[in-house]
């Protein structure tokens, strides 16, 4: 495998990781809490996409937005059930973290009941898998789709957060909930919106990941959960650009460790990275300490 090939692989896989990790980063930036049910929402996104293709004969292009909508609504439900009641009682953040673990288990169990534990696949022909000819590296149309969709969604999110009224409100809530509410922002509404966005991004990532590996089980979230966490630790927890950069770094590390014969150890490499960052640069690679004057 040549170096160009590895870079290409790292790029499309990085797109999926970034997309997935952005949901962690969004929720963390607003609530200061890790949503550990995020990987379960990712899995649900993949299955909603799969059902749309197999049961309703949707094209992949149509299945992705439907999966995003469905996963986004699961995100909102997650907030209403696992987070909002604790917030209202001013419960400590650790309680919210534990609550999100419970929600993750529940979501995976429900998926097991409905879909079973055998790997599910997108039907042959629903996705183009032939390698594109005439290029110096191997890339399939699905990999191009993955890259395009993830980059487009990330650009859209960035635009939303920086340019739109809702994005400004999100940033205000992330800074200080009381101040945001005095500025006229409906803080609970922003929480719901954030969970919707995070869920929708996870849903898109789930479908894309499912398409890439074409093997889906209710446990597929486990494959990305800790990688996503590594990505946001690398990128500086609630940092959106950091999550994007981190996704590509983690994917590159994984791809290069596979290419160099370490395929059995690829996760070990990723977790070694996580460990090293936590040890030497806990604010993340692109993160910086906020400096403010009183």
């Amino acid at each position, binding site marked *: 495998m040549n170096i160009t090939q590895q870079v290409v692989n790292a790029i499309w896989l990085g797109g999926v990781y970034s997309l997935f990790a952005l949901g962690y980063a969004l929720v963390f930036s607003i609530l200061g809490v890790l949503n550990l049910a995020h990987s379960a929402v990712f899995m649900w996104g993949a299955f909603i996409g799969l059902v749309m293709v197999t049961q309703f004969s949707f094209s992949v292009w149509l299945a992705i937005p439907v999966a995003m909508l469905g996963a986004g609504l699961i995100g909102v439900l997650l907030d209403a059930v696992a987070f909002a009641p604790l917030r209202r009682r001013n419960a400590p953040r650790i309680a919210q973290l534990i609550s999100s673990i419970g929600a993750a288990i529940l979501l995976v169990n429900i998926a097991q009941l409905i879909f079973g534990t055998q790997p599910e696949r997108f039907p042959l022909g629903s996705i183009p898998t032939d390698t594109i000819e005439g290029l110096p590296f191997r890339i399939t149309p699905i990999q191009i789709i993955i890259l395009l969709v993830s980059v487009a969604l990330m650009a859209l999110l960035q635009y939303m957060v920086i340019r739109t009224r809702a994005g400004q*409100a999100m940033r205000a809530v992330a800074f200080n909930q009381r101040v945001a509410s005095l*500025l006229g922002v409906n803080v609970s509404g922003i929480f719901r919106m954030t969970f919707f966005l995070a869920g929708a991004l996870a849903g898109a990532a789930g479908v894309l990941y499912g398409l890439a590996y074409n093997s889906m089980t209710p446990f597929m979230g486990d494959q990305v959960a800790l990688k996503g966490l590594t990505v946001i630790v690398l990128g500086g927890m609630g940092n959106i650009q950091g999550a994007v950069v981190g996704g590509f770094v983690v994917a590159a590390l994984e791809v290069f460790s596979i290419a160099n014969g370490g395929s059995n150890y690829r996760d070990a490499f990723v977790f070694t990275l996580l460990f090293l960052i936590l040890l030497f640069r806990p604010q993340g690679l692109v993160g910086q300490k906020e400096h403010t*004057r009183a």
Partner: protein
Amino acid sequence: MALLEVSNLHTSYGAIKALRGITFQVERGQVVSLIGANGAGKSTTLNSISGLLKPSSGKVLFNGRDITGWRADRVTGLGLVQVPEGRLVIANMSVEENLWMGAYPRKDRAGIQADLNDIFARFPRLAERRTQKAGSLSGGEQQMLAVGRALMVQPTLLMLDEPSMGLAPLLVNEIFHIIAEIKDRGIPILLVEQNARKALQIADYGYVIERGTIAYEGPAEQLQQNPKIISAYLG
């Protein structure tokens, strides 16, 4: 009917009763000052009106409408705008973004832009620092930004919580100058201050809070003559 009518307001923090029946009014076009010592309940009063705290009993009428216990964002939406204690500008947004954020309840882009230009004309220090992050401003500049941001809502009533706190004497004068200017524009102000002298000089009417109740009230000139108030707050 007064613009703001607060009657018999009680608010607690758990077992601590911070407000024990606060009653006062703000008339249209007036500056009303609430003065009192540390811990008297001034901030708790403002927070109970603006929706940051839920009063346990009592009533808040704004423009004749019962807004007791309303959520903070809905109170702001009515034009009853609080500048909280400690300024609290959004540190990681630029000066201009903070001002746009102030206009969050409004939808009229053209009007917002006009008001933004107006704020920059009135606060040249903010105009010079338009793109600078608010967190890097000095204390006085942050206070101006917090006031400017509140003006972006086009408030019907402005509530200021200790705007002069922690500022050098020169800047305190500047802040009170700004408050006088806002008053001249016809925007009523409910002013909470520990600087009782200046607060009463600028006010039409004043109230003195002691341990969660109103101990004295009256036209500001009269309060300034009251020997008890002179010895306790103006001495």
